[in-house]
């Protein structure tokens, strides 16, 4: 068996989610080959070569792949991947966009968002927003799989010394082009990589009030998240949304502030190690999943928390 793992990156650095996907690949067993496609992304290939468990890195460095256009990446991965038993990608916005194309081009099913490897052809994945876990078995010759990062530990980023080979495949579907990207730059860690997250919900009342969460985040080195209610109300941008339709997170500590705990939010954070809920409504469903609940006015409790930590 040989497994192709598609590296998620921004042409400069390897996305940490890829480390979790490498772990899923090593659990399936066999040679783990990482494909890095992009433009001017040699540094990413070097980083991938050092990841523990990786036996080889393929580098497709071409302007066609600069912006990860799904049409072009899909063609590339289908062509490279047809000789492998498994093709894995992380459940990131890139992975979600191109991987089903690979499956369709190879005429195989895709198994989305796995959280557990049972065997080389059997995997567990959440359905119904995490309200049920399905164990599924693939009958296809090539298994195309997207991996939920929080289901697997990260592989060690150092320790490996895989060779980097160049792949000279240039596919241009020529039907789409990149216009621009507005990526929020932050001094704080990425939500999906943070070990501590403090999130606000509708109870925050407005975007300005998120400053009190930021003050706590700065002390804990935490990322700041939000519920869908807070995003829909326009308090904060959508990239901060934690939940089934936003980011799926599982930090060591998750602090939910003014969040009622709708199913769709719980689906995105209930695998966190320790959950703290601060809400003035003692009936809020968030308390049912919280390890520590504090029934209090968040505008008093959060500043007090900031002083004590």
């Amino acid at each position, binding site marked *: 068996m040989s497994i192709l793992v598609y590296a998620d990156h921004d042409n400069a650095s390897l996305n940490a989610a890829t480390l979790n996907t490498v772990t899923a690949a090593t659990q399936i067993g066999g040679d783990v080959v990482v494909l890095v496609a992009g433009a001017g992304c040699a540094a990413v290939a070097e980083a991938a070569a050092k990841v523990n468990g990786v036996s080889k890195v393929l580098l497709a460095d071409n302007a066609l792949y600069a912006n990860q256009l*799904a*049409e072009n990446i899909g063609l590339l991965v289908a062509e490279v991947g047809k000789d492998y038993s498994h093709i894995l990608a992380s459940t990131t*916005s*890139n992975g*979600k966009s*191109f*991987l*089903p*194309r690979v*499956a*369709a*081009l190879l005429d195989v*099913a*895709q198994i989305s*968002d796995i959280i557990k490897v049972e065997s080389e052809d059997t995997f567990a994945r*959440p*359905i*119904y*927003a995490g*309200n*049920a*876990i*399905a*164990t*599924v*078995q*693939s009958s*296809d010759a090539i298994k195309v799989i997207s991996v939920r990062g929080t289901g697997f530990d990260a592989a060690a980023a150092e320790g490996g010394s895989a060779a980097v080979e160049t792949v000279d495949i240039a596919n241009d*579907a020529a*039907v*789409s*082009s*990149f*216009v*621009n*990207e*507005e*990526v929020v730059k932050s001094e704080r860690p990425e939500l*999906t990589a943070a070990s*501590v997250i403090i999130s606000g919900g509708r109870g925050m009342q407005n975007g300005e009030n998120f400053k009190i969460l930021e003050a706590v985040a700065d002390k804990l080195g935490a990322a700041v998240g939000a519920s869908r209610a807070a995003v*829909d109300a326009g308090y904060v*941008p*959508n*990239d901060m949304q934690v939940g*089934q339709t936003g980011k799926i997170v599982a930090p060591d*500590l998750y602090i939910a502030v003014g969040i009622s705990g709708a*199913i769709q939010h719980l689906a995105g954070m*209930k695998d966190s*190690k*320790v959950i703290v809920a601060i809400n003035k409504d*003692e009936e809020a469903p968030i308390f*049912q*999943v919280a*390890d*520590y*609940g*504090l*029934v209090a006015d968040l505008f008093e409790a959060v500043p007090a*928390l900031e002083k*004590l930590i």
Partner: protein
Amino acid sequence: MKVLVAVKRVVDANVKVNVLADNTGVDLNNVKMAINPFCEIAVEEAIRLKEKGVATEIIAVCIGPKAAQEQLRTAMALGADRSILVETDAEVEPLGVAKALKAIADKEQPGLIIVGKQAIDGDNNQTGQMLSALAGYSQATFASEIVVDGDKATVTREIDGGLQTLSITLPAIVTTDLRLNEPRYASLPNIMKAKKKPMDITTADELGVDLAPRVKVLKVEPPAERAAGIIVESVEDLVDKLKNEAKAI
């Protein structure tokens, strides 16, 4: 320009589903069914394009059981002009659905196909991308804005770090994200009118499409429950517990 929208019949988003005791699936008996919320957003976007004069005809398509006629009627009550049901009682997978949609697209030649980014039952997030690859149409997933201009569309997409804008050549497939629009409700007169709108019923065989599943569901289980926590009395108490008991800070 014709616009094709796909709708799926799923458990209503407000229903809390329960796993069957024999672990073969979730309990769908006497549960309220509805159009998948992301598909509803797709229908709404098509209607808005028609209102702007961009779309000339909206065709709603469903691959599903006979009962899914209900969801197609709803789509027509909202504003779709006609509908096509590819009737099947089998549990359909995204690859099969994409193949059926491609067969219909080949016949109808739409300029734009709008589908939901995922269905809230299987949470697969695959059909639109697969359809795009099979049909050779351009693709923009997770759309929060669609602007059609001539033979191109500019689509703003919700990506991990923020927003990305792509220019795609028509014909294209766009998958919807939550913030693309807020769907309207169907008015009573429109619900009545929808009863007279045409609905074609066909089968996968007639389309020459294989819907056979590739993935076998071995079991479906409820997720692991979290152990009940405690209510702390004060912020001091909370910080103490986090430091000394959970050792989380």
